[in-house]
């Protein structure tokens, strides 16, 4: 779709995901066996037909650049399409959480001034939301209503809300109130779904104004101007999850095992794209026992696995029992180990005979590269 630019913003650091984001930007937290969090927003934008996309990085770039490469897998590497990795993560005020940091936009002025004058709207998406959302329809809605801003929202959100999530009130498709979940947790579970469409000109003016007002959070700017602007709300009907804590990460992983959610996220018209790898097909030995699990390529399964996500190139040896767990890429689980309610980050090696048990409420989290 011409006349549109997509931006994936750099979500503020999520304290509860600490072990997972210590060595990578939140964009690239692995999920669902072969994906990274950013794949969902990036695929949603690509599937809406937008071919000019900027991804605001964080100060830890390596995993992001490695993952996106030239954007080939998202069909963004041809001459007519454009994927840019933008500066980000600078100047965050200590102790304050900036939800949509306008400083990131100021730092990338060159990107925004170079955007063709024919561009009318900018789509802003968070990098830690899991959904398969038809942005095209939301864009249509935005234009039909000649909105200044259209904010996508999820009513009756049941997932975890961190204190700084934006919640809203909506009347006749218009946003009437906007605030922090911490202030009004009891009243509202109508959460901003971290996707908005905003007029380019308006965004440019807001960026210009920051230089004088110092108001750095776009959501605060919008809150302060609710009455002056034409702000519409567009509901997301299907599955939606914000990954902002260990618990929400774990819940989302387990929810991906539900047939219906899986169908919606993975089997619809709109594909979720990710970096592909030259792995062999999953190898199941004669001793493998497996049920209700997602298994990626390059894995070798010798043990028994139930309600689990087994990511690329993980090796599960004989006699291993895994239940309700997420095993990330390249983990090696040696013989006769038991793992229940746990999240094992990439390259974890669990030596034979160990027992790792967490609870559903507090799943055990094992840091990347650990040997246990």
């Amino acid at each position: 779709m011409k006349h549109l630019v997509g931006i994936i913003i750099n979500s503020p650091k999520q304290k509860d995901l600490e072990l997972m984001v210590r060595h990578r930007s939140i964009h690239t937290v692995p999920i669902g066996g072969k994906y990274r969090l950013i794949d969902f927003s990036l695929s949603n934008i690509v599937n809406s037909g937008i071919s000019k996309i900027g991804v605001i990085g964080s100060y830890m770039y390596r995993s992001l650049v490695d993952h996106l490469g030239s954007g080939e897998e998202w069909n963004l590497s041809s001459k007519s399409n454009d994927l840019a990795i933008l500066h980000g993560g600078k100047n965050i005020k200590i102790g304050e959480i900036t939800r949509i940091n306008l400083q990131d936009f100021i730092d990338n002025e060159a990107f925004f001034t170079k955007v063709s004058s024919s561009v009318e709207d900018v789509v802003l998406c968070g990098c830690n939301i899991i959904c398969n959302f038809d942005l095209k329809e939301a864009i249509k809605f935005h234009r039909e209503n000649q909105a200044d801003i259209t904010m996508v929202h999820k009513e009756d959100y049941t997932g975890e809300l961190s204190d700084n999530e934006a919640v809203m009130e909506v009347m006749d498709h218009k946003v009437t109130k906007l605030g922090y979940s911490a202030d009004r947790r009891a009243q509202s579970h109508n959460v901003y779904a971290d996707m908005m469409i905003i007029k380019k000109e308006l965004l440019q003016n807001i960026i210009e104004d920051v230089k004088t007002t110092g108001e750095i959070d776009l959501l605060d700017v919008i809150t302060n101007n609710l009455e002056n602007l034409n702000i519409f709300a567009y509901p997301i009907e299907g599955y939606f999850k914000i990954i902002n804590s260990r618990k929400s990460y774990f819940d989302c992983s387990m929810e991906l095992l539900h047939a219906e959610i899986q169908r919606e996220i993975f089997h619809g018209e709109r594909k979720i794209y990710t970096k592909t790898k030259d792995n062999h097909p999953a190898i199941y030995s004669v001793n493998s026992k497996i049920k209700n699990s997602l298994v990626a390529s390059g894995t070798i399964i010798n043990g028994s696995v139930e309600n689990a996500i087994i990511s690329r190139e993980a090796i599960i040896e004989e006699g291993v029992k895994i239940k309700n767990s997420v095993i990330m890429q390249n983990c090696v689980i040696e013989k006769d180990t038991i793992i229940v309610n746990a999240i094992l980050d990439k390259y974890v090696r669990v030596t034979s005979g160990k027992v790792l048990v967490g609870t559903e409420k507090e799943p055990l989290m094992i840091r990347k590269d650990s040997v246990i």
Partner: protein
Amino acid sequence: MNNQKCIAMLLAGGQGSRLKNLTVNNAKPGVMFGGKYRIIDFSLSNCFHSDIFTVGVLTQYKPLLLNRYIGNGSSWALDKIDQGVYILPPYVDKQGGNWYFGTADAVYQNLAFMDMYNPEYVLILSGDHIYKMDYAKMLKYTIEKDADLTVSVMEVEWEEASRFGITNLGEDMRIVTFDEKPEKPKNNMASMGIYIFRWSILREALIRDANDESSDHDFGKNIIPMLLNENKSIFAYLFEGYWRDVGTIESYYKANMDLLSDSKEFDLSSKEMRIYSNNRNSQPHYIGECANIDNSLICDGCLIEGHVTHSILSYDVTVGKNAVIKDSILFNKVVVEEGAVIEKAIIGENIRIEKNKKIGNENSEEIIVIA
């Protein structure tokens, strides 16, 4: 781009009629293998790992799927500046043009392509072999022997020997005589259909062969015997390792099943010379509550609620509840409905097996092919 050391010409034009209906809409090298792969992946991956980055792929029979699959060669990291994979179908010039009449004719008709690169050596490959081989070692051997032609050979079972071109070796691995598919083989050193020619020798031989009306224009039958007669310096290069010609349903099926054997004759999980492929962007496969999986290879995108044993499932296969898949190979997007039973069968792409249907028999000699 000019004066490359070695370029490869990959013969991918064969109809593969012995693979029966697997090749109705697809050339043999484009047939799926081992789940996610297609047969041509093996040769192309070998080229990359051997630092041979210019590959001409000679296509003729039903080339559309193969052409699309190969694309710009990026799947095998062969999309390089001034090098890469080039699809070479028969073409016409002012004098007209012809279909490829034989393996040698196919290469002859692309002399202009090879002239463009003007290499020192040309590697001739087949697109229907399953193996990992470092051609760079064979090239080094060729240079050390100062050979005009090196033929890659391997020991085969004696009873198999008459299916192959058999080399009779003299001292120092020099090939003395070459018998194409002999009734009574004198030994069991079989040609694998992999040759490295000195380009100047090949060029001249191809032109002479093209002018010989009695020739079948075949490397094994005509070119090699001709060069032997002329006392050219021809050596055998002994290959040790797993290599299979998958030209028949039986050999194709068996090579697939080798991937599941305990002995790991051909280990896909080995990181060494990893086989590259055109990877699909499908989700991880899902194994349902009542499923049973053992001794199988399963690709991304599959949705399995039935029982799968000693089988290979390609991308996006669906297996319904209580369905049984045994000793079988299912290609991309096969749907097996509830309660269906498939034993010792090969099911082609996009086929739907209806509810409670029974196909094949595990005790039968015959391999059922549905495509």
